[in-house]
């Protein structure tokens, strides 16, 4: 090999090395950094996504369990108040004398209506049955008055009706 060829090879080698490093620094490294950053973010987001999905699944299971568990009485709470239904219900066990609304309050999630009921019957057993079969949204409240007159038992009590506020 002549000296001229050796020098030329050396110059090419130097040129190659410079080009290689320039490409490495200005082209490959930024691409690699961008790739690594995107991949890192993707991995982090994937971990977060899995956590969020697990939490969502747990909440769905809890929601479904609660819905099934409470479906029997939820229906009552979500029905609108029907005075005729109550009158029929009272008359099923006793004889209604009067029904008077004495309070109506709207709370955050539900509305409460309070009624003063006066009814008559022959035996307190009718009242036991009436209370036992009350809907899950009806609350009997004190004071409860019993008055025995002319062979009839007159009963006065308060009933609270709860209904969930419709949004």
């Amino acid at each position, binding site marked *: 090999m002549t000296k001229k*060829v050796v020098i*030329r*090879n050396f110059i*090419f080698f130097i*040129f*190659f090395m410079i*080009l*290689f490093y320039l*490409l*490495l620094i200005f*082209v*490959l490294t930024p*691409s*690699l950094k*961008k*790739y690594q*950053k*995107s*991949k890192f*973010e*993707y991995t982090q*987001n994937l971990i977060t*996504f899995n956590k*969020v*999905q697990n*939490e*969502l699944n747990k*909440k*769905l299971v*809890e*929601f479904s369990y*609660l*819905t099934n*568990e*409470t479906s029997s*009485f*939820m229906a*009552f*709470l979500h029905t609108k108040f029907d005075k005729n239904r109550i009158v029929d219900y009272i008359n099923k066990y006793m004889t209604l004398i009067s029904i008077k609304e004495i309070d109506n309050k709207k709370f955050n*999630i*539900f509305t409460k209506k309070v009624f003063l009921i006066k009814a008559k019957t022959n035996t*307190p057993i009718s*009242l*036991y049955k009436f*209370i*036992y079969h*009350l809907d*899950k*949204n*009806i*609350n*009997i409240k*004190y*004071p*409860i*008055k*019993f*008055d*025995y007159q002319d062979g009839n038992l007159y009963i006065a009590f308060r009933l609270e009706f*709860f209904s969930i506020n419709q949004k």
Partner: protein
Amino acid sequence: MYSFVYVKKKKLFNENIRLWLIFISIVVLIMLLFSFILLYKAKIYSQDNKYIISKILQEKKQILNLKNKIELIKKEKNLALEIKANNDMINSFIQNIFDLVPDEIFLKKVIIQKDKLYIYGFTPSKEIYNKKFLVSFNHIFNQNKTNFYRNKYGYFFETRFRIKEDR
């Protein structure tokens, strides 16, 4: 004249330079290709990231929505359970009161309040009242105050009890 030597075209680069140039070109191409692949992958990760982030936000919104619903159902459930417990308690309380009254005593009026109980009735004698009626009621009630009024059947009594438990 005929010559046996062909005229050779003079090449721009000799063999050695060509090899160098080919080598450098291949290396540069590989580096550029590698960089392009990295950028392409980074772009795919970036797109996936956007999708995952939108899914995370969507699922977080769902979780929040479910949490609110679960909280509401729990409140509704507690309300229904409270109503049921209250009605059962009042029912058994009323039944207890009437079960405690001995056959000899005739009740005229009963008023049940949150913490008080008023009983009005007839007793043939104070002894029967004290031994059969008051003894059993004293197990449940704290204080009592009784007034007797003599009449043709025996005694008309007015008794006021204070209920032990907070109802």
